[in-house]
């Protein structure tokens, strides 16, 4: 069975389809420290993210959403990539992934550190689909920024 051109195989890698059809960490956390949502109105992709943060680490994370295989698989992989990691590392992964998606020559990105996410590389050859892959990460970025702003406000109140 030949499911299409090599480039199509590259886009729809097994691991992507697997995350799409069996998403990890799907749902909403009951008591999140921060939650955020985003959408691509043009294609109708939607992602909601909730995070629990303990001792500067992502203690738990969950996502809800609907949309294309790329946006949903990217969200699922993202939750796996950041769960249990310190926020500083999460920001590093976030930056590396966005560079991988949007920069033509992102050779300095450590693919091994990205785990399954490396499979999304093929999306780069489909410029209109890059925003699908990046959507969950924009929501993550917003969540981290919200959390950081909340922490700063709390510190200001204490002082």
């Amino acid at each position, binding site marked *: 069975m030949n499911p299409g051109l090599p480039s199509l195989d590259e886009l729809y890698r097994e691991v992507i389809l697997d995350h*799409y059809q*069996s998403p990890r960490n799907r749902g909403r956390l009951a008591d999140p420290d921060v939650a955020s949502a985003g959408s691509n109105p043009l294609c*109708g992709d939607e992602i909601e993210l909730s995070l629990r943060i303990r001792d500067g680490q992502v203690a738990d994370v969950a996502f809800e959403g609907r949309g294309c295989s790329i946006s949903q698989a990217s969200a699922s992989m993202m939750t796996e990539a950041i769960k249990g990691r310190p926020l500083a590392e999460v920001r590093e992964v976030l930056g590396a992934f966005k560079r991988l998606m949007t920069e033509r020559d992102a050779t300095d990105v450590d693919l091994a550190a990205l785990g399954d996410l490396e499979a999304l590389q093929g999306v780069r050859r489909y410029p209109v689909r890059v925003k699908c892959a990046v959507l969950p990460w924009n929501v993550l970025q917003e969540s981290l920024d919200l959390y950081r702003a909340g922490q700063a406000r709390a510190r200001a109140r204490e002082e």
Partner: protein
Amino acid sequence: MLDVQRIRADFPILQRTVNGKPLVYLDNAATSQKPRAVIEALKDYYERYNANVHRGVHTLSQEATDAYEAVRGQVARFIHARAPEEVVFVRNTTEAINLVSYAWARRVLRPGDELVVTEMEHHSNLIPWQLAARDTGAVLRLVPLRDDGTLDLDRYAALLSPRTRLVAVSHMSNALGTINPVADMARLAHAHGALVLVDGAQSVPHLPVDVQALGCDFLAFSGHKMLGPTGVGVLWARREILEGMDPFLGGGNMILQVWWDHAEWNEVPFRFEAGTPDIADVVAFGPALEYLAALGMDNIRAHELELTHYALERLREIDGLVIYGPQDAASRGGVFSFGLGDLHPHDIGTVLDAEGVAIRAGHHCCQPLMRRLGVPATARASFYLYNTLEEVDALVAALGKVQQIFGRARAAV
């Protein structure tokens, strides 16, 4: 019947390949491809008689003006207008509708007046009326859609009242393919003293359209969806209505006499064509109209009906495929919105593109309609005069590929 192979030879772009496969262009509801005669007319204009219109006394300007005005006459004949003066050139359907919204509706609407639109309108026949209602205190009323993708005409009749000032309705839905009974709707609206605007963006390219038979007051459509270049739209309106309207944009060409503090408007249609128009593209729209007229709009409709029958039959063979809109060919055009299982239309569109098949995936500028259908978006294949039954087969085969790719993953889970 059309000699489709001969027609295809007139469209240079249909010879190209996409991702190594012959192009199967099924995004005609978005824009059509152009025959060689249109492309050459553009070049010919710029190489031989490029000049501004309605201005100079020199030869080039006279030739350009003659060519530009000749196309106005062609448009008038094409839609059976009474006179070329009833044809206003604008950029596209959207601008034509906005012209009516600004130059007519805002002048006549009073608080409590009502505008009637339908649930299947393109954003371009919805937002201009939302804005006019907001600015005047008029109220927007909606004709609901029935589950079969047709308008609820009983509810439509019940919505009309002496407060109704305008009914704005698409002749053919760009998302569902539904052909609306606009002549009957216009009769009913007129009985209540309302005017009728028909959005002909999808119908004028595909069906014989006669404004006298439709009995509407305004008709808006775009040249680029009917073999013409981008940049040319048409607003047709009854002469007496145009003559009672204020200008839309102010500037050159739309005036007779100008003083420091006031001006006298030019005659119609020039009153509505401020500034230098898109001369080259209007001129090149001429051969497009000629091409369609030579084939005959009845023959084009007959060819698309054959494609529609066949597409309905073949698409229904596909497991999990849902076609939105009317299920019989006679009450629809060759525009098919569909879903495939729980797959997102963008995944469908990407796989089809790898097979050389160009379709649209998205909300088709009909977000409220998508919500009504309960989907974020649909995939849409839309046909035109140069499409073949074999291209329907290519679409079906490519959809098989989509199922193969996504079924493969399901099997592995």
